[in-house]
């Protein structure tokens, strides 16, 4: 039906029940309905990567997923990763290395970078580049971003005191 459909999902660990129009994409649902505006909307056709979120633990483009497709799913946004402290070190590394200018791409860059570091402890620079290749930074800050990811990987490898 073009009428709203009921969906039930978790977003950053919290249960969310909503009625959404089928045409509503997940990015707009997160931003406009849940006011989680850390997920950015750039190109709206899957090219820029600014809307990257985690669904079921895997990164996806939230502009290329309908909110109705997220029924039953566990969605995590930058707000969740930030508040839980999961990426505190990565955020600090971005800040220290000036790995952002305007900041528009940053939430999704952090999402994609953390996705890589969860599966590969010490990726080569080329692997970092490849994993972030779907995320555009129009301030052209790529070198600093890759530096920050590499620094974080190295720091996480060090034995904890």
């Amino acid at each position, binding site marked *: 039906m*073009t009428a709203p459909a009921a969906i039930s999902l978790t977003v950053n660990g919290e249960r969310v029940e909503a009625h959404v129009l089928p*045409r509503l994409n997940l990015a707009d649902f997160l931003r406009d309905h849940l006011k989680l505006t850390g997920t950015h909307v750039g190109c*709206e056709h899957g090219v820029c990567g600014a809307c990257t979120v985690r669904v079921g633990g895997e990164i996806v483009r939230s502009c290329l997923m309908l909110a109705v*497709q997220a029924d039953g799913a566990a969605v995590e946004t930058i707000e969740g990763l930030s508040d839980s402290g999961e990426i505190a070190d990565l955020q600090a590394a971005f800040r220290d290395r000036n790995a952002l200018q305007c900041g528009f791409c940053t939430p999704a860059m952090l999402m994609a970078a953390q996705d890589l570091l969860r599966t590969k402890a010490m990726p080569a620079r080329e692997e970092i580049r490849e994993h972030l290749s*779907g995320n555009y930074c129009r301030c052209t800050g790529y070198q600093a971003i890759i530096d920050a990811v590499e620094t974080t990987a190295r720091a996480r490898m060090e034995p904890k005191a």
Partner: protein
Amino acid sequence: MKASAFTYARAASVDNALELLAVHGERSRVLSGGQSLIPAMNLRLISPELIVDIGGLAELRGITARGETLVIGALTRHADLLGSSDIVKCAPLLAAAVAHIAHPAIRNRGTIGGSLAQADPASELPACMLALDATIVVRGPAGERRIAAEQFFTGIYETQLAPQDLLVAVEVPLARKGSVHFFKEFARRHGDYAIMGLAAQAVLDGDEFADLRLGYFAVGDKPVLAKAAGKLLGTAMTPARLAEAADALSDELDPHEDQEATPAMRRHLAKVLLTRCVASLLDRPDLLHIGGHV
């Protein structure tokens, strides 16, 4: 932009999906991973009235070996192909190709069935299906059809699928003893659509080709299984023979012109990839230097 309004139906089974498609036909579109369909809808290139979401159908998922065939369910995602030990063992060409498809976030949603049904002439998997001599399994109102990949792709975004049909699986012959593969594409940046590319599967008999299937993509309105490969079978490879096959390939292809390349450039790149492919598969680096194109 945002997609225009549509009616959404979540299929409860393959039969249910087929019923919906039978009723709504051309007014409907099938949603699997959505990584091609949703961009097209967001750009308002298409505005279907009904979306039939097959994403929840477990019966369309998974990779299973059945006799001499690997059956890959339509909803198998690119990320699943990349991480599958069965694919690496039985159809390693697919693993090599999938690494070139877009980016991790896209590969986590995009499916093999969606990619083949979309039939973008610049995409990797249709050419792989030609090289692997795969069979596309389709269900429609009249039952199941099994279509050879060579017949399946008919034009730009066009296949043998009717609006009432559902692509349910692909069947790939298991790699035979002596099988080798080659995959290479030229793209501006990693993950971009290819300017042109080659997916090749071969069977070696000593230092000769017993079989060689060359699936070219981004060379026209559909992927091409190059007949020029026939000139390279069952014969000791020489620079002259390879050059002859490269010329035949150039005559055979009818590449398109777009902002990425002219037809002449695509013909040239096709010959370059042929040379690299043959040199790589036969482990003959000396062949790379024929005719000056490396």
